[in-house]
């Protein structure tokens, strides 16, 4: 009986990717080759970026009038083709991929789900686990970027999915017949490219992912330090010289050295804490104020990047518009401290400054817009005497103080504390919420722990609190951790902090 089993094919895609088109190609090719075929789908309301699936059965020629099923059966699917990597994970989790039977073809492209995107930190699903699972769970697995291949060939992922499926050799008809149902040059190009790629993979060419470019950071004269730490410090010096001047970079180095002196470099946890602390220190010292933002927005390389990103063609004309909303607070930040304080006092009384606090559109590659931004970038010269500079340096010194203590006493606690400035993110209200969370963690966990010498005992709670603060912007989870509840599982950031 089993030799008459139909060929069973499950396609997993996202709404709007052309899964239906792909299904129809396969159906047409099967009919053209004289096979009885049946296909169905559950698109429903999922036409809008939700997970969709298509299921096809092709009866062998010696089983006429086969009764074909409309629903895939777990463990009984011959081939699975996915347009996206996490969809492959979903199919495997549902039990459709069997090591005895299933050829799994999946794009490695990621189309992040909302759940992954909305985390304050890094909520992305672990791709390595999907690759490992595919290796273990499929009879044959072919993972490569079908989305990029489609883009390169000016077509859609449905064409490269079809090419990969046909190129894998699981279908009972030849490539030229498969290709004949396409009917347009771009789909054919995508099909051919995917066929070539999967044939190369089958021949054992392996995953041809490029090696990451070597990082060429200036190496300061700190030869005795571990490699990772030295790189971070190098980047930090570079960043702060760019941000302000050589003297400010020296301040960074001096601060980093203070931390290094407090740490036991033979303990890898301490080295890790130190590296992260130096990274946070550099980012914190290069805080974003209007001068910095204006400077970054008017650099030639930035406009080049935009030209690339929008795929500007020769002969086209580009204008770039910025969405800015400077408030009195941002202006106070960059003004000399006494002036900044007076403005902030006005703000506290509920008053602002004239003309500010409204959204403005600035054409940054227009003449007026460009030079206005350049003028704002020039405010960098006022930065050292500015209102915010003083506040930030004070807060940095405060953190450095506890960081030194933590490094000397508990590397675990220091690893958490090094991550704490990570909650200071964003601008305006977002930044205020971050500062609020930072203050609460500092006052409720860090200072009491250091005062009582209970760093090691409190390390876990500190990391939980940081993870919770990064999990949502309402601070509900942070409230729970500070109230003594164990953290809710499934806070992605938390795991990352632990894994780090």
């Amino acid at each position: 009986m089993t030799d008459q089993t139909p060929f069973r094919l499950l396609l997993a895609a996202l709404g709007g990717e052309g899964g239906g088109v792909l299904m129809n190609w396969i159906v047409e090719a099967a009919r053209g080759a004289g096979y009885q075929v049946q296909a169905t789908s559950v698109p429903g309301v999922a036409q809008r970026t939700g997970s969709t699936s298509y299921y096809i059965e092709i009866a062998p020629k010696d089983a006429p009038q086969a009764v074909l099923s409309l629903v895939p059966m777990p463990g009984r699917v011959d081939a699975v083709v996915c347009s996206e990597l996490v969809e492959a994970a979903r199919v495997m989790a549902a039990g459709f991929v069997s090591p005895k039977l299933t050829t799994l073809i999946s794009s490695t492209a990621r189309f992040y789900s909302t759940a992954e995107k909305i985390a304050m930190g890094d909520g992305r699903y672990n791709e390595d686990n999907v690759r490992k699972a595919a290796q273990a769970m499929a009879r044959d697995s072919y993972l490569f970027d079908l989305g990029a291949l489609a883009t390169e060939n000016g077509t859609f992922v449905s064409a490269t999915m079809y090419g990969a499926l046909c190129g894998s050799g699981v279908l009972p008809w030849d490539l030229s017949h498969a290709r004949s149902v396409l009917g347009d040059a771009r789909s054919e190009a995508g099909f051919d490219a995917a066929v070539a790629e999967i044939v190369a993979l089958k021949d054992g060419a392996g995953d041809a992912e490029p090696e990451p470019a070597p990082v060429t950071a200036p190496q300061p004269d700190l030869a005795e330090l571990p490699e990772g730490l030295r790189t971070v410090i190098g980047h930090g010096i570079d960043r702060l010289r760019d941000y302000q001047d050589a003297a400010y970079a020296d301040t960074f180095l001096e601060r980093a050295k203070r931390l290094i002196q407090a740490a036991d470099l033979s303990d890898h946890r301490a080295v890790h804490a130190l590296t992260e602390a130096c990274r946070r220190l550099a980012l914190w010292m290069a805080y974003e104020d209007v001068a910095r933002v204006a400077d970054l927005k008017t650099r030639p390389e930035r406009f080049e990047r935009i030209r690339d990103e929008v795929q500007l063609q020769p002969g086209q004309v580009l204008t770039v518009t910025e969405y800015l909303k400077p408030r009195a607070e941002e202006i106070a930040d960059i003004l000399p401290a006494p002036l900044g304080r007076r403005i902030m006092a006005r703000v506290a009384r509920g008053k602002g400054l004239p003309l500010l606090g409204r959204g403005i559109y600035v054409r940054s590659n227009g003449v007026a817009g460009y030079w206005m931004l350049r003028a704002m970038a020039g405010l960098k010269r006022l930065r050292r005497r500015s209102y915010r500079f003083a506040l930030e340096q004070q807060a940095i010194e405060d953190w450095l103080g506890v960081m030194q203590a933590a490094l000397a006493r508990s590397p675990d606690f220091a690893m958490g504390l090094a991550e704490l400035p990570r909650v200071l993110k964003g601008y305006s209200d977002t930044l205020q919420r971050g500062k609020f969370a930072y203050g609460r963690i500092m006052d409720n966990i860090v200072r009491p722990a250091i005062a009582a010498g209970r760093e090691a005992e409190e390390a876990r709670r500190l990391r939980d609190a940081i993870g919770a603060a990064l999990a949502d912007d309402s601070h509900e989870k942070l409230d729970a951790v500070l109230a003594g509840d164990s953290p809710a599982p499934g806070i992605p950031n938390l795991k990352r902090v632990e894994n780090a």
Partner: protein
Amino acid sequence: MEVSFAKEIEKLKLGEGEVFHGEGILAVTKALLQSGVSYIGGYQGAPVSHLLDVMVQAAPQLDDLGIHVESCTNEASAAAMLGASIMYPVRGAVTWKSIVGTNVAADALSNLASPGVMGGALIVLGEDYGEGASVIQERSHAYAMKSTLWLMDPRPNLPSIVNCVERAFELSEASNTPVMMELRIRACHVQGSFEAKDNVKPAISMKQLTGAAPHNYEQLAHPPVTFGHERKKSGERMDAARAYITEHGLNEVFEGSQGEVGLIVQGGLYNALIRALGELGLADASGNCDLPIMALNVVYPLVPDEILSFTKGKRAVLVLEEGQPEYIENEIGTILRRAGSKVTLAGKDVLPMAGEYTSEVIGTGVGTFLRQHLPKIGNQLGDESYASEIEALREEAKALLVEPVPPRPPGFCTGCPERPFFAALKLTQQEIGPVHYSADIGCHAFATFAPFNFGNSILGYGMSLASNASVASFQQQRPIAVMGDGGFWHNGLLSGVTSRLLNGGDGILVIMKNGYTSATGTQEVISSPDTALKLEAAEKSATHGETTIEDALTGVGVKWLRTVHTYKVAEMRDTLREAFKTPFNGLKVIVAEGECQLERQRRIKPIRAKALKAGERVQRTRFGVDEDTCTGDHSCIRLSGCPTLTIKTATDPLKTDPVAHVNNGCVGCGLCGEVSHAATLCPSFWRADIVTNPGLWDRARAALRGMLTGVRA
């Protein structure tokens, strides 16, 4: 609707002997034409929208058939349309999504069923049950029983479905009773083939007019004749139906060698059953099976003689019936008991009461049944090893993947004009605190998912305002109800607005005026922009000049009414704040206006392509994020949820968290920029306007810019 069904319409024109290749629901449409229907109507909804969508476009081309096609404003209106078949010998069919549509249609259905029909009347139900369903899970079967309508559930292959449609009309006429046919989601979307017949020209139609029927009190659903109808339904009409079903072999029996037991299955589950039996080693790919199977293509009414004849000489039968409660099993039990049969009846005792019957579920149930009632086979089955094999597969995947796979529910499209409204509402709530939110059916229900997470209740299509009538009485803050223009015309105007006005109640209603019933495939409503408005709007939103909704609201007496374009996020937030805070006591309606992006893009694409081809100046817009200034806090994403506003690994070696990123799918709707302004988010968003085929003025300005700024752009 901008989508063209030209290819589908060609398939509807196929003649005798030609082979139809296509989708299940289109095959149903073709079968209606082959049955000589005079009229077709319905209300859109997955999985049956396609029937009506195609027919609306096909009607002019099938002009010689003279079929009247109507897009009804709701299912009640569609069901009432079948009234034509009560007093005229005309065939007609209507369609909708069930259970929800049948609920709405229930009043008309009762009044239709009572007098019965002269011409064949068919209701094609998209039975939205199981995976992929978008509505509450209930069975349509109950309606068949309580109103005495016949219910067909054909085996899910095209020849069987088409045959059932054709037979349905004959059955309807033979028994003077409307017939319902339920098709599950996958059956509606199934791709298959059947041999077509010629379309039949109806004897009475738009082309063949007839005079008014004589007054016949018997045809009214009005006492005293309703008492006679009630007797006829279970009497002569039921008898006639059973006779027809038997005579034409609508139900199918497949013999098997193991005659001591038997399986009785709803036709729609037949293929899943065969696959399950194949896994158990009891059937081959062509459906030849060791166990006798009775496939019920008509699930109501059952024919007692057929049941008794099938069960005769058997020790036990298993009824495979999806969903709850077990109406068919109960009826078979009654039939067997009344006949004094000793056959053991099994069903929901070995199969789950609720949920979809997949092959996996069926296999387990059949295995249990056989172990109890046919141990010589049951004890040798592989169902338990299959179950443990699959369990092991899932466990292994779970262990390897470590984290649970993130959910990926459907969401608002890129450029959807409804998304900005929810960003504005989120900002408003940040100011005034949480409010009771009554959600509705439609695209806007996607706001119940992350990142918006809105909604305290969903009570049905167009019912959001009605559902908070009493909530409003005990809330400190005004509750808000949101519905789409589809829901507004389907039910919301009457059930919600006029009821609130009649009672002088307070409250806030937001109507998403996007111009179409978008969630079901952008069908037109009474307030859809007409061709002139679309032409005038070109690339802009075409809903702006369309004021039918506002006129209707003013007409019924709404005093506080604002129309705000959704992309004006700050203005929308201010309007919402006003609605929540104003001392005005009474219904406040905000019309949140912005044309459905799907329709707008379908209109724009050809306009642009044509202009580009002609070498004309074309401007496109897209947005981006400066990764240098993005700190990776993702506030913008939490206020937008746009599919193209995503994240990527920062190229900055110091940054460990991913930064926001706009991918190439961006259509330049501008929400990210508006939100960053309204919420004072961050300065990272930029807008790029790219001019293709620039004019002299564009080029001169670009040259001047380059010269005076030193920036190449």
